[in-house]
């Protein structure tokens, strides 16, 4: 599904380059559930963002479902991305002024899905995550776990093939975290490819493979 070849990412700090990722080669196959681990600052989030095409590598080749991402124009990348990738963040990142329903609906707005269809899809999703009763509440009125559920629901609403999650359970207690992990497990069983960043061995164990990152290189 994804192939990274000689990917590096650096920032110019003064005259020097500070490498965040150094010469990374990585293949992620369809249907995998990969956990990325490593100490703080090792480049996990950066790697995830590059995989999701949110961030651009400084160097290297990248293929996503057969397309050479490094050759694509902004517009094509954006199309590829919004059809196939869903993102989940540690800090949930919901839009505060929108209700649960509206938050989940937002990705569909950018894919020109008709209103009636949107309604049905969001209703489905609410049902699936057992949060129908919360649909008119605002994020601030939800618990952290509920917010993360909404975040995941939003990431999944457009049926992406790839789900990228950056420490999705980082702000949750262990019980909530476990629920999320079980949900991921199930999603993966349904065919969604998942890459998650995590600090917890226990969470990593839900996945099928672990990538260890140290100072921007896979070990």
């Amino acid at each position, binding site marked *: 599904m994804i192939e990274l070849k000689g990917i590096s990412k650096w920032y110019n700090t003064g005259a020097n380059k500070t490498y965040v990722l150094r010469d990374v080669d990585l293949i992620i196959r369809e249907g995998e559930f990969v956990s990325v681990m490593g100490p703080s600052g090792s480049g996990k*989030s950066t790697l995830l*963002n590059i995989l999701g095409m*949110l*961030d651009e590598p400084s160097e290297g080749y990248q293929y996503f479902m057969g397309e050479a991402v490094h050759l694509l124009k902004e*517009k094509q990348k*954006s199309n590829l*991305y*919004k059809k196939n990738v869903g*993102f989940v*963040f540690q*800090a949930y*990142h*919901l*839009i*505060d*002024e*929108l209700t649960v329903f*509206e938050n989940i*609906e*937002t*990705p569909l*707005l*950018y*894919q020109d899905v008709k209103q009636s269809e949107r309604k049905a899809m969001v209703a489905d999703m609410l049902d699936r995550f057992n949060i129908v009763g919360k649909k008119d509440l605002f994020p601030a009125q939800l618990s952290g776990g509920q917010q993360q559920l909404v975040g995941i629901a*939003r990431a999944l609403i*457009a049926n992406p093939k790839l789900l990228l999650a950056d420490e999705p359970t980082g702000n949750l207690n262990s019980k909530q975290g476990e629920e999320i992990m079980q949900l991921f497990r199930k999603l993966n069983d349904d065919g969604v490819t998942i890459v998650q960043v995590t600090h917890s061995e226990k969470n990593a164990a839900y996945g099928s493979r672990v990538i260890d990152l140290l100072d921007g290189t896979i070990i």
Partner: protein
Amino acid sequence: MWKNYLNITVRNLKRHPLFSFINISGLSIGLALCMLIALYLKDEKSFDMFHSKKDRIYRIVRDDIQPDGTATHDGNTGMKQGPAFKEAIPEIEAFVRIQSERLPVKVGNEVFEQEGMYADSNFFSVFDFPMKQGNPATALSGMYSVVLSEDVAVKLFGRKDALNNTIELPLGDDRAFIPFQVTGIVPHSPLNSSIDITMLLPIQLNQRRDGGDNSWLNFFLNSFVVLNENADPKTVEAKMEKVYTASARDEIREMREKFDFKGEMRYGLQTLKEMHLSTKYVSGNGLKDSSKPIYGNILGGIAIFILLIACINFVNLTLARSLKRAKEIGIRKVVGGERRQIIIQFLGETFLLCLIAFLLAVVLVFLALPVFNVLSGKSLSFAYLFDIKLLLVYLGLFLLTSLLAGFYPAFVLSAFDPVKTLYNRVRYAGKNYLAHSLVVLQFAIAAFLIISTITIYRQFNHLTGMDLGYNDKNLIMLRTEQMKSDRLHTFKNELLKDPSIVSIAGRQGGSWYTVAKVDGKSMDFALEVLDTTRFETYQIPLVKGRNLSPSFPSDSTSSVLVNEEFVRRAGWKDINGKQVDFFYDSLKYDVVGVVRDHHYESLAEKIGPQLFIMHPKYSYGELAIKVKEGQGAKAIDHIRKVSKELFPLVPFNYEYKDVTNKRQYEVEEKFQKIISYSAIMAIFISCIGLFGLASLAAEKRTKEIGIRKVLGDSVLGISSRLSIRFLQLVMIAVVIAIPAAWYALNTWLENYPFRINIGAGVFVFTVFILVLIALLTTGYQSLKAARANPVKSLRSE
């Protein structure tokens, strides 16, 4: 999609009510002002445009060119020019002459004072003034016909039908009242018409009275000509030149010999459309005052300034707050939003806010229109707003404002990198150059307006409070009929019987300029018909020689007084043996005294040479009556009684001299008020903008403030640190504004011969005021932020 955007917008507005209020109300005020001024300008530009022949109607104007090359421009002509040009130049289809005069009107036993106008009988075929009753083609063809406007008809006849009724006017021999028949009634003339019809009379009456004035060199009315469809005004002007030199040759020669007149005269054509906004050829004699375009320009400038300030607020506040929306933008991008869509969302938001502001502005205009009318001296109506062209202007204004205010934020916001915003890696500091420069610009404009307000106010006070050289307090000016000396004295003696009246002096009424030979050279001066009590009544001291007096019987026929300026111009060291030699009656007068200079004209003019004469051939038409302090009302009762007895047919018409004098500065006064109000608006809008920015800055730095506090910084230290940043901006603004204001105001002041100098005081004061305002607006926010509980602000991070 749009519903989603709308929800976000509305919820954001609701969540920050103060902020929304500041943002929208500032823009509303700016827009409302622009709308008002657009109305004003439209009205100015629309003057006289309702005449269907407007492209072909021209006024005959003159340039009098002096031997030294300087020219004076004048829009006045005489009876002769219209017919003479029409006869000789085929391109001229028709001419109309108009001249105004205030006349007493007798209806039954009642006498009214009424502004009237003489016009040629084809008046209604040249100008498009509809007639309500009567036949426009013939209404003025009878010698003793009169056309009235509706309101004058009501004034004279009450509700009774005025048509075919009779009024009496003092236009017979020796100004005897003779009957006139009302042959037409016209509606009130449009407000944007230079010609205001009140009481229209055939111009032949005027001609008859002045003995069939057939001179090329008498100028007292306005002549209009209508050219053929295809006529070129330049060609016509050239022909006019020829006609004039040929026909007026003898008259000019005589003038040159008699008056030592060396100038040359050129006739020209001024289009009707340009007339109102022309300052070159002044109006008068039946035409409403023309406007100086400078006032329109200044108003337009102010409108743009204020709209700019409001837009700056909008941009600044939107940008400042947008930082709080960076997260939303990041999320929208992460879930698939493209940059284009984000731009559209934010532009849409701006449009919505602008729309709200716009609707509010319309309400504001509605509420403010009466005040604005008083200020601008216009009678604009709210209905004017709904004119198609003006609506287009407003639409344009709306689009422009929305784009101006929305474009920048939309572009900046849409460029946010989601990776940075969502991972808290954005550093906002240092990116504030734009916001800061805009604040500087805003306050520079505010400072400019404050300095202007104060300076204009000072100049106004300078003009109105200046020593006139005479005392205009408790001085009543009374218009009378023309009186020779004996009648004047009877009147005066009757009036003086009441103890409230201190002294009385007759004047000729109006101003009169002439020319005479002084030491062999010709000299222009103002001529005053003197009554010996003149200087005592006006309290003007004599600086040399003596007053004219009945105890020198020869005074009335052979002596004159002059003012100091006259002596200066004549280059005299002494007045002993000096004489003034009048051309037209070949009489020589001895100069027997010099009076101190005083402002006999408005302060917009320098004091020129003035000469006082008492020859019995002159008559008096005005009385200056000095009354005792606080006894004015009593004196006026007495004056009215005596006038009624002696002159039953003259309407009672008086005014205090100080009131008249003050009225000469109406334009300045109006202007001063308009500028002050705009300055207040500008400052207000700038302040709310600063207030908003300060609150955002404080909010943005709550964490920093929290840390500083934990580290032991004091409330005062923190809040002053926050305020100082804004103070610096205000200071930069002042530094920019001062030279600009200094230059602009000096240019303006050069129009006044008696002007103030701009001292440092006004600048110091402006700095002080602005610093105070900035401290007050930002201080509250800074203090609030500094006093907040640090634990709370840190924990929420």
